[in-house]
């Protein structure tokens, strides 16, 4: 809402709609502002989260403005909120009001992505039957009934050649460890996490139900995911829609393999490495230790901590559908993170999420720091050492 010099009147009907769309917990907000103060946006520009909460309480949200599309759903605010307001859910509810009731425009890039996912089952709008093409030359089987593990790389590594390396490294590791696994074929869709956060609950539900029935048909019992976003959705949101399978993140699975001596390190990685906690692994699911333990077990690797780590990890900026939207130069959290990593003198910033990898790769390129720092997935680092 623009700063008003004239009186405003609460719009109860709008407040009611926000409540109906899942924003009822908004009522608890007592306007302390800690959400604003911990929001990473406020390190680069103003984003007064608290004011949006109050506008929501009174039904005075500016649905035309960009504010409701800014939230990267990093969950920092939710973790600190003294009243337990699920601010990410509120943001989702506000976006639902727009996407479902059509009362304002969804930002163009996001609208196209949602359309792609809705139509083709992946955000890039690629053909479904090309889903497994990334692994054509790797001698990997498609998942079929009776296979122990479904390795779920996430649409991004599957369809985007620039981050394919994280999934290919994972395949190399799984094969060397003798894991009985398969990869998804054309029937599988995007997990739907970002679509849901972008406010399109209907598309999310359709994707989720479709995946759940495909998994059930194929007899999937255990899924290993590359992306914390897929992990979070499968583990915490699919069960409510009937999903009945175990989900574990690749970093957790790698630690299991190391502990069971199924992965033997034969080479050293003599690098100074910092690990970047992804929001959806850390703050959403309290997984902080396993990725670090995997990295620490790599011979020669020196693991150091960046200033904002673990529960305070600085979001890469890619959650909540932001990965599909343009963020202005000077406002990119990923740039700040690269600066932190450079200041700490690390050779490699290790990531455990395809979105982080995309954003950091992009920052390294635009900042022209490719000679000083590399972005590597944990799987790449492990793969290089076995």
């Amino acid at each position, binding site marked *: 809402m623009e700063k008003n010099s004239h009186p405003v009147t609460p719009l109860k009907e709008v407040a009611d709609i926000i409540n109906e769309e899942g924003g009822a917990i908004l009522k608890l907000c007592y306007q302390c*502002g800690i959400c604003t103060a911990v929001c990473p946006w406020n390190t680069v520009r103003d984003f007064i989260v608290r004011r949006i909460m109050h506008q929501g309480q009174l039904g005075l949200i500016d649905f035309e403005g960009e504010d409701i599309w800014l939230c990267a759903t990093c969950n920092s605010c939710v973790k*600190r909120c003294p009243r337990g307001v699920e601010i990410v859910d509120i943001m989702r509810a506000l976006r639902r009001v727009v996407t479902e009731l059509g009362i304002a425009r969804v930002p163009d890039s996001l609208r196209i992505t949602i359309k792609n996912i809705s139509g083709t089952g992946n955000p890039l709008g690629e053909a479904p039957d090309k889903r497994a093409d990334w692994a054509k030359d790797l001698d990997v089987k498609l998942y079929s009934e009776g296979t122990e593990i479904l390795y779920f790389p996430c649409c991004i590594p599957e369809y985007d050649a620039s981050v394919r390396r994280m999934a290919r490294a994972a395949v190399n590791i799984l094969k060397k460890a003798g894991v009985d696994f398969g990869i998804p074929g054309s029937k599988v869709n995007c997990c739907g996490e970002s679509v849901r956060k972008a406010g399109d609950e209907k598309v999310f539900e359709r994707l989720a139900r479709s995946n759940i029935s495909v998994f059930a048909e194929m007899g999937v019992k255990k899924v290993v995911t590359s992306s914390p976003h897929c992990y979070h959705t499968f583990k915490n949101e699919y069960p409510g829609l009937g999903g009945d399978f175990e989900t574990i993140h690749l970093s957790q699975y790698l630690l299991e393999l190391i502990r069971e001596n199924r992965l033997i390190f034969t080479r050293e990685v003599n690098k100074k490495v910092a690990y970047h906690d992804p929001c959806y692994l850390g703050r959403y699911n309290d997984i902080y230790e396993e990725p670090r333990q995997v990295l620490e077990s790599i011979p020669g690797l020196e693991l150091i901590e960046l200033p904002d780590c673990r529960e305070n990890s600085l979001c890469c900026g890619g959650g909540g559908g932001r990965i599909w939207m343009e963020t202005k130069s000077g406002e990119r959290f990923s740039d700040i993170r690269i600066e932190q990593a450079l200041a700490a003198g690390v050779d490699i910033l290790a990531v455990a999420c395809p979105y982080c990898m995309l954003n950091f790769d992009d920052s390294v390129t635009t900042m022209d720091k490719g000679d000083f720092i590399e972005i590597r997935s944990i799987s790449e680092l492990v793969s290089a050492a076995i």
Partner: protein
Amino acid sequence: MIVARDYVFMCSEPGQEIIGKDIRDLSLNRVVVAACSPIMHEPTFRRTCQKAGLNPYLIEIANIREQCSWVTEDKQMATEKAKALLNAAVKRVYYHQPLEVRKIPFNPNTLIVGGGIAGIRAALEIADSGHKVYLVERTPSIGGHMIQLDKTFPTLDCSACILTPKMTEAGNHPNIELMSYSEVEEVSGYIGNFRIRIRKKARYVNGDRCNGCSLCQEKCPSETDSEFEAGMGKRKAIYTPFPQAVPNIPVIDTDHCTYFLKGTCRLCEKVCEANAIDFGQKDEIIEVETGSIILATGYSVFDPAHIKHYGYQRLDNVVTSLEFERLVNSAGPTGGNIVLKDGSVPRSIAIIHCVGSRDRNYHDYCSRVCCMYALKYAHLIKEKTGAEVYQYYIDMRCFGKGYEEFYERISSEGVGFIRGKVSEVTDRTINDEEKGRLVVVAEDTLLSSMIRVPVDMVILCTAMEPQQDAEAMARLFNISRSADGFFLEKHPKLDPVATNSEGIFVAGCCQSPKDIPDTVAQASAAAARILSLISKGEVEIEVAIASIDEQLCSGCGVCSSICPYSAISFDDEKKFYKVNEALCKGCGTCVAACPASAITGRHFTTEQIMAEIEGLLI
């Protein structure tokens, strides 16, 4: 059924008169009242019956409010339910038996647990009226948290100056037996007749001989953090917590005493001219009998290290409110000079409110005193250092007498008020002005802008929380706690000093966070309740209790083993079990458990309950 009446306020005088008149005129022998919960007015209507010559147990209340109209949304269904409840009461009351209330003598002694301002106040009230008080305090001296405080809001009285006269009075009062460094170990009995076992811990100093010269403390070579100074100062292994301690008898802290740790030293013994040191002293067990008990066990302070973002114990010059009280106190470790760790005077201080309070990640409740003492700090800081003060608050709660006026006064002294919950206190600085200082980060919610204030010191207004052993204490005294962990009062409005255990009262912060005026008021109220019990001299005991038919009792003992009040014992002579009528609370556990159906719950007989159920099933 002789007569049925409808009246809007049956509990009023005219309403009661209607019942009384009918009992007399129509010779009624049973009464049913369909109204609110018996918790509210059963005593009222029982008195009405008694006045009219009917045994008070020949009445039954059908609760058609709390258990019916308030909880049943559909009006028609509520009416049907009310009819069923009324029918059940009518069927039940037919089987009621007249019962006689019995009275037992009330022991006029009182146990008070906790020697803070609440315990001291209640002890003096009762002792002044001529009755004996046992005042049990866990630490070496009475005084509680109040003796640690510097000034008190809103009057800025010196806390120690107003408290020490009361402490001395309590210490010297002929009717107060002060047991410091002692703890209650066991409680048995019931209202009017409690038996309490108290462990008087060994001080290793003979209190009769010690003249309080404190030479032992001067000479003792072993030093540790002083609890009284909130860790800001040191004390010796033999110590009195502070100079005005009552009693002024030191104790030896065996965890830090060189002799107890290494087997040599005994320097205190050598220098003590009164020969008061006694390394052979043992804990003493003392048993006392009292009619009532007041729990005034106080509160504990929230550990702000749980909120990592505030930097407590990680960053220098981030202190808790209690630490600041000592820092600013002229008898404290810095002689009342507000100084930083390096000894310099701060130019700017931030005070963060609600640290651990009003936050569901820690404590939901408001600690009630922080807004006010934070204002007090602003005044003291301004007065002593002239430093800038920034109050980070969410809502200013200045509700007491003179509090709003105090808020206005401190505002006029030029204090920065920033409305917003602090996200972090950090030493990661972004410009030269911040360099080397603590930066307090928040949204100023009134500006709708992020605000970073570089300061030299941060004071955390930490929450009051239940004592660490509140759960064990509640179990020991058989009382309940509310969801927040504090002791539960009997009724939040109409009986805020009693508990669900008859004869046991609460006062002060063990019941909920409160300031000194409210604590003192509650302590006086608890004392008044006890004095009224003492002056009655006897106490009515529950008549709706269990009784055992000796003809049917096989002596199996199931009842005795499950009785939660240890009220059933074996009669060796007659070879059957019997109920101690003073101990039995009428809970009915034994009635249900007896395999021979030999136990009857008076006023809850099988006939009465079956008739009531039958009545419900109309």
